[in-house]
Structure formats: structure tokens, C-alpha cells
């Protein structure tokens, strides 16, 4: 018998008065995976995460965590939405110790503080913490419960590069140990670095859900920066290659061309440049595949 999905959502609808926050949302998350939720502001990400944390009940649909309907699951779900809830008058350690006593958890605050890189400031009041430190402490608070499903809303918000790397490492280790993570973010680079699968929401509906590779394959006509040894010759080659179009030149650097193409046309362009003796010094997407897909799928009037 197959293990149940970590999250299984079917036809989830949630309204606030006349506002439809979620409209028939379907998506699955496999156990032990890190799953990203992406969408513009107001797309319904936080509402969906709130449902997973049992903060609200869906008006319609089925939402199950490890095969059990949300709200009847025997614990094992932790995380935060709209930022971590912390008490500024307490120190980091006191916040966690109070939470541990509240929940009857045996995990030691010191261990989780060490894990998120806050051991040095464990006895400082949270009042003086930066946004990034609060985010990490929020993650530590969730880890206290040793969750099977970790739900995080914008966990990298306010983190410096080192902090972000640290948090990514923590999440990778958790996933490797079998914890499922569902996180939302506006940072496409974070999601690409962490997630194998994503769900894109727009105005309360799922416009894509699945592996990142599939997203790239479906939306592979991207804009690329092309830097060569001879921009004039490169432009001539570009003009006689089918399926490729030059966009507006890069601002401030006349040697860089910006082209839009699917992968096969791009391969052909590179072959021809090499045949004509033009060296390719840089060829990189202007925006990441995920960001391109996100923009394509969530722009008003886009075809879904």
C-alpha cells in the first residue's frame, strides 16, 4: 500500500465575504519534498497555508495531511504565516522554552537555536532582533514540535545571504530526514534552489502545479542575454536563424544582445555563431525559467 500524500487538496474554496480567496484549488505534495507556493499578492497563498495550519476551515473541498483531514490530524503540522509570532519582552530562549512547555514538547530550545544559528543570541530579548533573526527564531519555534509537515510563509524574508544559505541548509536537511516542507515565497531564486515542485496561484486558482522541470519545458521561450566577441556578426547570424527574435538591446552595454527563443532555436544559433567564428562569451536567461513562467501565467490576460 502506497504511503499517503503529505498534502492532498481537492476543490478547496475559501471566501471572505464577497472575496473569493481560493477557488477550487487542487494540489498534491509528496512526503519528504519541499514544495513551493508562488503567486502575486492576493493570490491566496497565505490563505492556503492558513488552512494547512488549521487556522481556518475551507468552505468547500477536501484537504488532507498524511491521509487525514486537516483539523483531525493528530498534530505533526507546524509553521507560521504572516511572519513568526514572537514575544519581544522574552529572550529567544524564553520564547522557545515557554512554547515547549505550552505544547508539552521535549525538544530542547538550545538545540533548535543552534540548528538555526541563533545560539549566540539565545539570551537576548527578541525586541532587539532583526527581521532575519526573527524569521530564523520562528523556524526554530516550528522545529521544537518536530513536525512531519512544516508550513512556512516567506521564510527567507529579511534574511541576508548568509542567513538565507543557513536556512536553506536547515530545510534541505529536514527534507532529507523525511520532513515535508510547504513554503511560499516571492523569491524565485529561493524556490528554484530549494523546491523540486511548485504550485503557482493566481487570483485564488492553481495555474500550474508540478515539477519545476515540467514548468520549464512548458514555458521555455525565454529571453536570454548573449555576449559575443563580435556583436555585429552575431546580429547577422541571428537575423538568418529561424525561431529567434532580438529584443531591445541591453541598456548600458552595446555588446550584449537580448534574444527570445525556445531551446532548439537557441542551440541552432550557438552552432551557427561558432561556425562563423564568433566566440560566445555569455548566454544566460534574463529571468529564471520559474520567474518567466510565473510572469507568463499570472499576468492579467494571460492564457492558462
Amino acid at each position, binding site marked *: 500500500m502506497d504511503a499517503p500524500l503529505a498534502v492532498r487538496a481537492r476543490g478547496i474554496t475559501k471566501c471572505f465575504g464577497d472575496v473569493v480567496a481560493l477557488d477550487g484549488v487542487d494540489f498534491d505534495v509528496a512526503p519528504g519534498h519541499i514544495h513551493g507556493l508562488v503567486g502575486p499578492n492576493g493570490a491566496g497563498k497565505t490563505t492556503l497555508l492558513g488552512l494547512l495550519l488549521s487556522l481556518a476551515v475551507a468552505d468547500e473541498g477536501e484537504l488532507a495531511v498524511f491521509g487525514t483531514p486537516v483539523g483531525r490530524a493528530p498534530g505533526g503540522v507546524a509553521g507560521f504565516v*504572516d511572519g513568526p509570532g*514572537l*514575544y519581544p519582552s522574552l529572550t529567544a530562549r524564553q520564547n522557545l522554552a515557554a512554547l515547549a512547555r505550552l505544547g508539552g514538547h521535549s525538544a530542547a530550545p538550545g538545540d533548535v537555536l543552534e540548528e538555526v544559528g541563533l545560539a549566540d543570541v539565545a539570551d537576548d530579548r527578541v525586541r532587539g532582533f532583526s527581521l532575519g533573526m526573527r524569521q530564523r527564531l520562528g523556524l526554530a519555534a516550528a522545529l521544537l514540535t518536530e513536525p512531519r509537515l512544516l508550513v512556512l510563509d516567506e521564510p527567507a524574508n529579511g534574511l541576508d545571504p548568509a542567513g538565507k544559505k543557513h536556512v536553506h541548509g536547515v530545510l534541505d536537511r529536514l527534507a532529507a530526514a523525511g520532513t515535508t516542507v510547504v513554503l511560499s515565497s516571492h523569491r524565485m531564486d529561493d524556490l528554484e534552489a530549494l523546491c523540486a515542485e511548485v504550485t503557482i496561484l493566481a487570483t485564488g486558482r492553481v495555474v500550474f502545479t508540478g515539477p519545476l522541470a515540467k514548468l520549464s519545458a512548458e514555458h521555455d521561450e525565454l529571453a536570454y542575454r548573449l555576449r559575443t566577441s563580435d556583436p555585429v556578426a552575431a546580429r547577422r547570424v541571428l537575423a538568418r536563424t529561424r525561431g529567434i527574435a532580438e529584443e531591445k538591446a541591453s541598456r548600458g552595454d552595446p555588446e550584449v544582445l537580448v534574444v527570445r527563443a525556445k531551446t532548439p532555436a537557441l542551440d541552432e544559433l550557438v552552432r551557427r555563431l561558432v561556425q562563423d567564428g564568433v566566440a560566445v562569451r555569455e548566454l544566460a536567461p534574463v529571468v529564471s525559467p520559474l520567474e518567466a513562467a510565473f510572469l507568463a501565467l499570472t499576468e492579467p490576460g494571460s492564457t492558462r
Partner: protein
Amino acid sequence: MTVETPVRPVPTTRAYRFELVKLFATWRIRLLVLACWLAPAVFVAAVSQQSSLPVDTLFGRWMNATGWAGPLVMLGFAGTYALPLLTSVVAGDVFAAEDRLGTWRHLLVAVRSARRIFAAKALASLTVILLLVAGMAVSSTAGGLLAVGDKALVGFDGHLLTPGDAAAKVLLAWVSVLAPTLALAGIGLLGSVLWGRSPMGLLLPAVVALAMALAQLLPLPVAVRLALPSYAFVAWNGLFTDPGQLGPLLIGVGVGLAWAVAATALAYLLFVRRDFTNAAHDGSRRRALAVLPLAALFAATAGVIAVATPALGSGIGQDTLQQSVATAFAHLYRLQTGQLHRPDVTEEQLAATAACTKGDGLVEPEGPGNDWRCVVTWHLPGVAATGSAVYQLDVTSDGRYVADGDGPKEVNGYFQVRTPDGDQPNPLWQFDANVELLSATPKG
């Protein structure tokens, strides 16, 4: 196959301890606890040593005569200012703090029950409020006893209470004001739930207390006055008469407790229906609806009191005032006799009576005012002549009055009397007493 079991919420006792940890972590609460346990002792001790006493405050004129006056002066001050402000700061902020910090969702995920969160917060704020009230009572008592001593207290009608009797009644008085304090705490919880981070929620108990204090100054019918949840802040002085004026006090305590239950229940119902995922929630509609049940409670209470008691008028009638003045005068005359080392005389032997008029007899002798004038007459054993003395009275609408001696000066003029505890003003010169509002016969 796993059996589905509902998510088990955190036990209320754990959530309660969590709330206490959060409350005592704030400097505001720590400072309040410190202030309530230290400041009253310092205040009472310092004032008791001064020659100028706070005679406008009930029992203030006895502060350098007995240590038991200090906690009663503090109680009068607490009912007017301190307790409404304390309930504002504690109960009025206990829910709003989570809104301000943005921690509601976090708390709900941790506790998994809005009901238990409410219970824990209400119990924790109640605990802190009780700690603060206990601090004021214990501290002011300690300050009074240490500075002045454990001596007899002159009651609110002039009769002398032994130190043991005074101690018991001081304790009862502080216990009785817990009822209106709890009512204000319930209103604080309601304001905190309704207004969230808005300062209006925090200020609600203080604003309501101020409004009720102003209402007590107005010439309202007794039934309306007694239906206010703050009435026990005034009615505790009935413990210090002989016999005790317990009717208004018991009604005040009952009304206070009814308001505490109603406001807390209302806060609970509104809280458990709150949608914590809806950022657009502002509760404005609920605020309007919340006023209705409390207004209904007030109207119902006033109606029941009006039907069940003689409480339709002001409660201040000529007969009751005359009886009160005569009783107080007789008690204080006996006290003066003892202080002046004259032969003892009993109240029965004095058979004091009073004849009171209002506005020089030109207005109906009823209701509050500073134009009451009473002529007290009494007899001394073995003396054929009848003694008489005149008093000008300032009667306030809550039934309390100050009687100011207007001659003859040998009886009720200002002079110092040498007592074993030092010089004291003539006890018949000025005295506080009150009219029992519910004993009045309604007009009409």
C-alpha cells in the same frame, strides 16, 4: 490504517501559565506589581504623619488616629482611579497585545483552541488584577499599622470599632470591591476583543468607570444608581455603620458580578467567532452589537431594583437624614465625652434627635444639596436642660454627607482634644456619615 482523532488542544492550565509568563515578562506589569505592593504603604505612612489630612476622602480625617483608616482611604482612591486604570492596563490589553504583536495565528497553531486561549487569557488577567488589588490592600494596611498603630476606628456613623472588628471590616470592604473590579475587568476583556490594537479597547474600562463616576454625581433615581456596576465602589462604606447598611452593598456586589459575567461571556462569544485568517476583519459591526446586551442588562437590573426596593426617588429624605445625623452625633458625643474625661454617657441616655430643613425651609426637604441645616438636641442624665447644636450639611447624591458644626462652639466648634494618642480635632466639629438610600420612603 490510522484512527482519526481530533487534534487535542493544549490543556488550559498550560495555556494559563504561558499567558502568565508573557504578562510578567512585560515591564509594565512588573512595575505595576511593584507599585501596588510598595506605593500604598509609603503613601499611607507619609500622610498619616502629617497635620493636614485628606478630610475630603472617606476616613481621611482619622488617618493619624488609627492605622485602619489608611487602607480605607486607599480603597476610596482605588475605586475612583486606581482600579479602573489597572483593569484597563491588564484586562484591556490582554487580547489587544496579540493583535499588536501579530501573534494570533502563532498562538492558535500552538494552543489549537480559541476557547482555551480565551479561558487562559481571562484567568491570567484575573490573577494579575487580584495580585495588584491584594498588593494595594496589604501594603496600605501595613503602612497604616506601622505608622499609626492597631487602634480603634471611628465608624461611618461615629460608633467605635475595636481593632479586631475594624480589621475584619477593612478586609470585607476590599473583598466587596472585587465585584466592580471584575465588572471592569470583563469590560476590559470585551474592549480588548472588540477593538484589537486600537487604544480605545485599552481605555474602555477607564472610560466606563469615569462615565459611571460622573453618573454617581448626578441626581439620578436610586434604582439607576444601584444598577451601575461600579456601585460597590461606593457602597462598601455601609459596612462601617451600626447596624451595617448591607442592602445597597449586596445589590452593588450582585450587579457588579452580573456585569462581570455578562461582559466576559460577550467577549468570549465574539472571540471564538473571530476569523483569524481574514485580514480585512475590523469588528466594527460587532462593536455596535456588543453594546446592546449590556444596555439590556442595565435596563433589566434597574427595573428589578426599582420594583423590589423603595428606590424610585433620590433616596435622601428628611426622616432618614434626621435619623442618620442624630445617630452619628450621639456616637461622636460619647467619643468626645471620653476624650474630655467626662462621665460616660450612653447613646440611649442622650436620646439625640435631629430636625433638618433644606434651603431654609423654602424647598422640599428631599434630595442632595449643600443647603441642609440640622438642629440636634439631646439630654444629659441629671440635667434638666436640653442641649442643642446646629450643623450645616453638604449631602451628595450617593447619600454621603459632611456635617459641619455651626455652634455652639463649646460643643461642635473647632478645638483640639488631648488624647492618649496625641491631639485630635473635636470629633463633633466635622464628621462624615451617610443616608441609607434604600431605607427612604418613596414620594408620591
